[in-house]
């Protein structure tokens, strides 16, 4: 039977539903919200990376103008229950809302001041006297495991090692392979610490209503439902007594996926005061205390034959998780071979605590596997004297040879690694570029090209992540309202889901309203993150729309005395195929469904509503891309500049090409920022050095290149729309592509680029060091 509807909106760049309110200043972010009798909170935070708290004197602060309350740990102690997040499990407890006896990073919250205004709360923070007894901080993660200064000594922990996985060969003949090949390449790849930095900082307006005994939260979050579940457990309430909403959220990138101790403190404050308490983080706090990311290193070894076949890859990996980690998501070593035909793998992993801000999820949290492999491939290419594009070509998987199971146990299908590489190289004109580069070198210009090819596990299954839900209702007016389990923070979900729903019901895009991020009206969802929306929420929206459409067809068939399978729906009109004058509008069908339900057949209950949960057929849904970047480095200033940036990607069927490209653009600029401009630094005592936008440099239009995108489409069979996730890829691929381009530009000087960041300062040092070595 042919489908009763035809796609009109999926695949096109319709205007976003979000845009009108956001462009006119009518977005509703948490900072814009207020409540009767609302008061404002500010934190006093530690100025030292590690110290005992001898005393905290809050007397002056308590009597400062406008101050309602000053809270310390002792006020919150025993006022809360379980403190774990559904996605991370019971083992990972959110640290206490305020420091107990000691502080373990600069920014560790010590006191919470609540006052009539934020300014008065901040004034009072300045009056709190803290008597610290400083201790030696552990800052360098590479040596933290052996450091006798233990971050969590106060908990009685013996060392700074949080997790240790000893070397695990995933293939029996690993050693023989390394012993028998022509080339063994060994290099240590280091990725610097850089951060999510959403333009909207964290924030919450928490309102506990005594008598009602209900908690209402407006919060900058990626997950209203998990936030609700968290605070229900935290305060020992039924889930129904906690409402969480987040109409507009100003970016998250992973930072807002979980629940933070600051939010816990604010919730306890409203509970104790019985008044709404609002906390809006400032930028200093956001940069120092809202989760840090990347900051991993790996010693990579590759076994390569004389003709360039990579026979094995291993990594010894170390990741910094800081003092308290909101989400200890680090490299997935089983993904290290990436989209290559590499048959053997081995790895070890160590996650260590330091007296710095803890690790948070950031757009592709596992992505160090890509950085490590792709940077190591360029090191290998230089070492064995093979062109880096050629070395990749030789080893990359192509669509025709799939399915393929990697030594890490990943089953790849429906991906196009080699194909995207060829497309991207073609877009650049790789061979011509190599000639141009040679000529440029003659003139003393430093030009380089960098490549990064990766595969992205989207829509993963871990813990809560496997499913999303949708309730779709056609109202008696014929208009459609969709209640989705998502929490958008810039992903255009209202738009893309409306495109899917309009197509599947057979109505106009403008007839669909999307409601999300309200725990009181929408189905449960784990949160928007992990590149899951198109596949999983899209699957739920699709299936719920089909279920409602089937009800429309059943009722219309009854009304027109036709068979449901003879009907079709287009532009809000149900008609008998081939007999267009026998038709009803959806509004007429809806009127019947709601106001004359008693006239419907016994097995048709009336109303036009369906709720569906969706789970993909397999996990994950793989997508893939190849990035190619050209940089030029000024030999006098050592300033690198990107001349071209090319992405060839395969995210299956695109719901909205403009939204897809927007996600790629944004991700790429975050990734290149992390190499060239962004670098969060601590001094050796653990004092943060980059605490404003004048030191922590985000890319601007001034540095950002034009980004060129090519699309390939291998349709996914994990979900009805054929979609794949693609929200994180840009940020995954850009890091190694840019670092490799810098490496290529410096290769003729004998420089071997293995670490980031790569600003003018680092490039100068690399060039100096290699000149010294050569001399």
């Amino acid at each position, binding site marked *: 039977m042919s489908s009763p509807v035809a796609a009109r909106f999926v695949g096109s760049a319709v205007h976003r539903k979000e845009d009108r309110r956001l462009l006119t200043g009518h977005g509703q972010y948490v900072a814009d919200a207020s409540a009767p009798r609302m008061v404002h909170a500010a934190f006093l935070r530690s100025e030292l990376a590690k110290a005992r708290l001898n005393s905290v004197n809050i007397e002056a602060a308590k009597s400062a103008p406008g101050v309602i309350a000053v809270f310390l740990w002792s006020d919150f102690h025993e006022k809360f229950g379980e403190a774990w997040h559904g996605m991370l499990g019971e083992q990972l407890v959110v640290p206490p809302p305020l420091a107990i006896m000691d502080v373990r990073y600069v920014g560790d919250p010590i006191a919470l001041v609540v006052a009539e205004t934020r300014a008065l709360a901040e004034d009072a923070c300045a009056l709190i006297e803290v008597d610290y007894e400083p201790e030696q901080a552990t800052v360098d993660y590479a040596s933290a495991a052996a450091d006798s200064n233990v971050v969590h000594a106060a908990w009685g922990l013996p060392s700074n090692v949080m997790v240790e996985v000893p070397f695990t060969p995933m293939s029996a003949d690993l050693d023989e392979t390394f012993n028998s090949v022509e080339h063994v390449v060994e290099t240590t790849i280091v990725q610097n610490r850089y951060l999510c930095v959403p333009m909207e900082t964290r924030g919450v307006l928490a309102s506990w209503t005594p008598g009602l005994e209900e908690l209402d939260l407006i919060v900058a979050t990626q997950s209203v439902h998990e936030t609700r579940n968290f605070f229900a457990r935290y305060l020992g309430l039924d889930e129904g007594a906690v409402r969480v909403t987040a109409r507009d959220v100003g970016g998250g990138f992973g930072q807002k996926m979980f629940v933070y101790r600051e939010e816990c403190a604010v919730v306890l404050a409203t509970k104790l005061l019985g008044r709404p308490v609002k906390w809006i983080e400032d930028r200093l706090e956001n940069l120092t205390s809202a989760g840090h990311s990347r900051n991993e290193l790996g010693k990579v070894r590759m076994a390569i034959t004389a003709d360039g076949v990579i026979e094995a890859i291993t990594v010894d990996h170390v990741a910094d998780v800081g003092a308290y980690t909101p989400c200890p998501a680090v490299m997935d070593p089983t993904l290290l071979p990436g989209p290559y035909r590499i048959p053997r793998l081995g790895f070890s992993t160590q996650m260590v605590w330091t007296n710095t801000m803890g690790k948070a999820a950031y757009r592709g949290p596992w992505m160090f596997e890509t950085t490590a492999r792709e940077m190591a491939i360029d090191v290998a290419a230089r070492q064995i004297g093979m062109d880096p594009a050629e070395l990749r070509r030789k080893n990359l998987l192509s669509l025709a040879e799939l399915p393929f199971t990697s030594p890490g146990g990943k089953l790849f299908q429906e991906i196009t690694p080699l194909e995207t590489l060829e497309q991207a190289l073609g877009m650049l004109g790789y061979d011509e570029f190599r000639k141009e580069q040679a000529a440029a070198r003659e003139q003393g210009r430093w030009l380089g090209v960098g490549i990064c090819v990766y595969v992205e596990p989207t829509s993963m299954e871990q813990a809560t992540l496997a499913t999303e839900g949708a309730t779709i209702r056609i109202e008696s007016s014929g208009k459609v309202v969709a209640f989705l389990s998502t929490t958008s923070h*810039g992903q255009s979900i209202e738009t893309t889901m409306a495109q899917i729903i309009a197509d599947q019901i057979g109505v106009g895009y403008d007839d669909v309203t999307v409601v999300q991020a309200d725990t009181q009206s929408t189905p449960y969802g784990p949160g928007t993150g992990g590149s899951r929306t198109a596949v999983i929420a899209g699957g739920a929206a699709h299936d719920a729309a089909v279920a409602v459409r089937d009800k429309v067809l059943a009722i219309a068939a009854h009304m027109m005395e036709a068979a449901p399978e003879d009907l079709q729906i287009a532009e809000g009109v149900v008609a008998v195929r081939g007999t267009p004058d026998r038709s009803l509008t959806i509004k007429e069908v809806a009127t019947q469904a709601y106001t004359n339900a008693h006239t419907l057949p016994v097995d048709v209950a009336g109303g036009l509503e369906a709720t569906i949960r969706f789970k993909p057929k397999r996990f994950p849904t793989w997508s893939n891309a190849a990035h190619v970047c050209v940089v030029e480095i000024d030999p006098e200033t050592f300033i690198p500049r990107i001349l071209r940036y090319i992405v060839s990607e395969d995210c299956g069927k695109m719901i909205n090409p403009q939204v897809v490209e*927007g996600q790629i653009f944004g991700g790429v600029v975050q990734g290149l920022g992390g190499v060239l401009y962004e670098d969060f630094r601590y001094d050796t005592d653990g004092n943060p050095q980059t605490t404003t*936008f004048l030191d922590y440099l*985000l890319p601007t239009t001034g540095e950002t290149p034009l980004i060129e995108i090519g699309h390939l489409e291998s349709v996914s069979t994990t979900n009805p729309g054929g979609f794949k996730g693609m929200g994180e890829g840009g940020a995954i691929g850009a890091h190694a592509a840019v670092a490799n381009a810098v490496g290529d530009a410096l290769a003729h000087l004998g420089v071997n680029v293995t670490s980031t960041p790569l600003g003018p300062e680092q490039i100068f040092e690399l060039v100096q060091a290699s000149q010294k070595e050569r001399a």
Partner: protein
Amino acid sequence: MNDRTRVRLTVNGQPESVEVEPRALLADVLRDNLGLTGTHLACEHGVCGACTVLIDGEAARSCLVFAVQAEGSSVTTVEGLTPPDGLSPVQEAMRDCHGLQCGFCTPGIVVSMTAYLNDHPNPSDDDLREAMSGNLCRCTGYQGILAAARQAADRINAI
């Protein structure tokens, strides 16, 4: 703290009079006293541009201006740049070119772009890149914003 001052100014064409502390920022007065929450604060130290408003037609960072400094001036926020029906050419171009995702930087972008195009009717692409370099956006990678600036400049010129 209690030495509050009365500030009179015109906001989006409306005469306003507010009592403020001397240290109150124009951004806070717009948002908290006048309820114009379209003006966003993303750094409060003058770098990100999210808080950009027009003061007597000139783009200014309202997180760096004390409300008392705006005494007697005419302030336009993103709300005031929106025509009664539809969108302004800059807003329309931003929508057409997907110049926004989460929307948090967007009011500042709209105000900055509008101010620049008012004063520079024939910008080159490089001029636009330079002009928009004072507004940070973490979502879009700026591609849509620069395309929108081009479209808006061309449309305004065609009128």
